[in-house]
């Protein structure tokens, strides 16, 4: 289950941000998990419950955005939504497509409780 490794990388990154902002605690963490990223959002959410224990994100809530897959057709130039195992152009049916959205695995935002002195 590589979702736990991903969670550890996520928490490391959140910890770096929290430290550099001198944050007291971390609130909501928003991530993007594409259906073509190879990561299962549900498993990631469960792994997060384990990985956050004893870290700066111990009380944090994980919010996972799963964007729709969008492909661009290199033949006809159309962009269309697609399914993970059917990435064909919806317009011309061609298979020479490029994924525009849906393969990302990104940290989007972190909500921090920052001491008032910094404001």
């Amino acid at each position, binding site marked *: 289950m*590589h979702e736990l490794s991903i969670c550890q990388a996520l928490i490391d990154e959140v910890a770096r941000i929290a430290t550099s902002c001198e944050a007291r605690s971390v609130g909501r963490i928003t991530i993007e998990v594409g259906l073509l990223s190879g990561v299962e959002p549900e498993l990631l959410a469960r792994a997060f419950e384990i990985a956050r224990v004893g870290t700066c994100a111990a009380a944090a809530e994980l919010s996972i955005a799963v964007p729709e897959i969008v492909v661009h057709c290199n033949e006809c130039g159309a962009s269309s939504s697609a399914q993970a*195992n*059917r990435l064909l152009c919806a317009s011309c049916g061609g298979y020479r497509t490029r994924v525009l959205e849906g393969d990302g695995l990104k*940290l989007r935002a972190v*909500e921090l409780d920052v001491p008032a002195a910094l404001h």
Partner: protein
Amino acid sequence: MCDTCGCTITPGNAHLAGAERAGASRTTVEVLKDLLADNDRVAQHNRAHFDEHGVLAINLMSSPGAGKTTLLEATIQALRGRYRIAVIEGDLETDNDAARIRAQGVPAVQITTGTACHLDAHLVHRALHDLPLAGLDLLFIENVGNLVCPASFDLGQHRNVVLLCTTEGDDKPAKYPVMFRAADLVVLSKADLLGVLEDFDPVRAEAALRALGRDTPIIRTAARRAPALAAWLAWLEEQLSAPRAIAPLRPLEGGVTVSA
């Protein structure tokens, strides 16, 4: 204070930064950073090591039992005296596969991942310390047998090769789209069994791969029958002679932490 994390947001400029609750002690920091950035940084470093020594690195992936090690044994025999080859072996336990490779007379480093279901760039970087790259032409990284997790981790390889075994279903590309999308070459292994395995239709397998928006070449091998390696060896020769983009070698800041 820094320029990247949003800690410079103040009540005076929060409306510009889009902070949700200006003036409150709770602030939202927009990040947009790849979660595998740390792995990718080490992968790039590995790639630069390979480039520095002119080594072509190939990441070999498949489900368990598809014939990765057997293909490597046959490849080493076929290319003996022409290319200098080494292998990094990834397995959950045992160094059986590395022993099989060493028996062919080439260096092999075994990475036992314990419970980890994939290799990552850090593990490969550590293995490189036990493997002198100088004097090598070709490095195979045999990943842990698994069609899911290895697909997400760049190791620093130049090419991904995915084996699809004829004893598996021909719909594997549809079931494991992330893995098969990552392939630069799909090898239909144990192709000598196609005559007796009526369920596996190579045309259906190819259609499932094309549905992933890929024109990845598919070749057939039968590693235990030397003539059936011709297409595979020709592909390898082509990759070895093809010019490769050279990654710049930069030291890893802060060293490498190894996670298993």
